[in-house]
């Protein structure tokens, strides 16, 4: 008697394991296509946010579906460059969350002062606000001359803007107030010249900075660092990609090196939670544990 095959058991589909909608299938295929053609890897991004951004892009380029947009993007590299602006976020300020920078001054700087030379990595630097904040802070604290900064992002257009260091003058009031609240020891106006509605930051601030194209999703570690600041970047990643990024920071940081995250970001949901101590948890500053 032929043996009967066991009955097929269908998976018990709960609310969060429903079969994906067509739109979500198209979204995944779109991200796959972008990766295969352009090597920008958004496949590990948190989908709720990227879906919304791509729906906006569909509207702008008059595409009814993600599949339509995919057809356009695959054949038009210039469009991909434009699309990067939709997919990567460029909302920041100088000294955003002043308490973060105050905590760096008061708690991290005393440690950094014990090093003869320092490397600082601003990961996901976007248009450079975080880099200039850090450079100004390091100058004020007397650390600039021993420090090398790496400012990395996946968006070449954002990196260009970061390198230029030019911001609309109507943002300066917020920047100035943030700087003051961060415990700034000088006047922010010492660091820029204003003309024709734009504030141009002093190029000496980036004299010790290497700007570089680097992806937390696909690239490897490039240097040993003592301080990594990566704020409001990880929130756009899903858990596995967050874990990859934190893994890079962990590998890059020297023993007892510091990691700064955004004010609502945490290591708690990554597998690296035990590899760092909460150095100043309220400020989201972590310290890599020394071995043994």
């Amino acid at each position: 008697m032929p043996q009967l095959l066991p009955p097929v058991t269908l998976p018990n589909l709960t609310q969060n394991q429903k079969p994906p909608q067509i739109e979500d299938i198209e979204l995944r295929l779109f991200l796959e296509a972008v990766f295969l053609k352009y090597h920008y890897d958004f496949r590990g991004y948190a989908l709720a946010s990227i879906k919304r951004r791509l729906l906006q892009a569909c509207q702008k380029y008059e595409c009814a579906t993600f599949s339509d947009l995919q057809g356009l993007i695959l054949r038009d590299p210039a469009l991909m460059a434009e699309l990067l602006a939709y997919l990567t976020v460029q909302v920041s300020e100088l000294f955003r969350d002043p308490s973060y920078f105050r905590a760096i001054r008061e708690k991290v700087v005393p440690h950094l002062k014990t090093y003869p030379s320092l490397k600082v990595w601003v990961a996901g630097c976007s248009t450079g606000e975080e880099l200039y904040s850090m450079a100004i802070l390091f100058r004020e604290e007397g650390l600039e001359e021993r420090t090398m900064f790496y400012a990395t992002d996946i968006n070449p257009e954002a990196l260009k803007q970061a390198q230029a260091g030019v911001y609309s003058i109507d943002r300066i009031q917020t920047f100035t107030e943030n700087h003051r609240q961060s415990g700034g020891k000088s006047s922010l106006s010492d660091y820029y010249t204003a003309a024709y509605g734009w504030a141009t930051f002093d190029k000496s601030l980036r004299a010790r900075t290497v700007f570089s194209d680097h992806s937390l999703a696909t690239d490897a570690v490039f240097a040993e660092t003592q301080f990594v600041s990566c704020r409001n970047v990880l929130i756009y990643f899903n858990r596995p990609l967050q874990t990859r990024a934190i893994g890079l920071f962990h590998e890059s940081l020297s023993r007892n090196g510091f990691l700064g995250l955004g004010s609502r970001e945490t290591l708690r949901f990554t597998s690296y939670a035990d590899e760092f101590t909460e150095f100043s948890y309220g400020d989201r500053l972590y310290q890599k544990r020394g071995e043994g």
Partner: protein
Amino acid sequence: MTGPFAPTAVVIGASAGGLKALSEILPHLPADYPLPIMVVVHIPPDKPSLIASLFDDKCAMVVSEAEDKEMIEGGHIYFAAPDYHLLVEKEGCLSLSADEEVLYSRPSIDLLFESAADAYEAGLIGIILSGANEDGAAGLRRIVFEGGRALVQTPETAMAQAMPEAALKACPSALSLSPSELLAELKEAGDSCLNA
């Protein structure tokens, strides 16, 4: 395919005057309330919000400010953090975003409602409370579109009426209820979830 309404989650949007309505609802839900509740209240971006700790003291349910990539659990109330959008991911966790403001708001009610509607589809209950702008109207319409339930605080019972009025205009099928009636609806949804 239309079966009986099977609720899986609740989202609430509140702005000016909304805290009063919230305090007439949330503290009266039991500790074992089975549904998760995500709440956006418009608050100033530059200071730490006391809302979560305020309601934690008053509520039997667990209350916290949402953390990025936190798993969503029943019996838990999540308040959006100031200056971040709060979104629901389909794999059942919360995501934060620092994207630009929507209708001058971050957190945005529309963004929470739209992402939650996408994730929970017909299982979602959306509630718009008192407020002085139009945030939430588009999000509530999206919830209705996905087959979820739309509830709006009766404008006459709201301190600021613009937000409930805009929501009712956008969603003519939404039920207009007082805070105590909203509470009764939520309790009933919890019971039907427990008995499902």
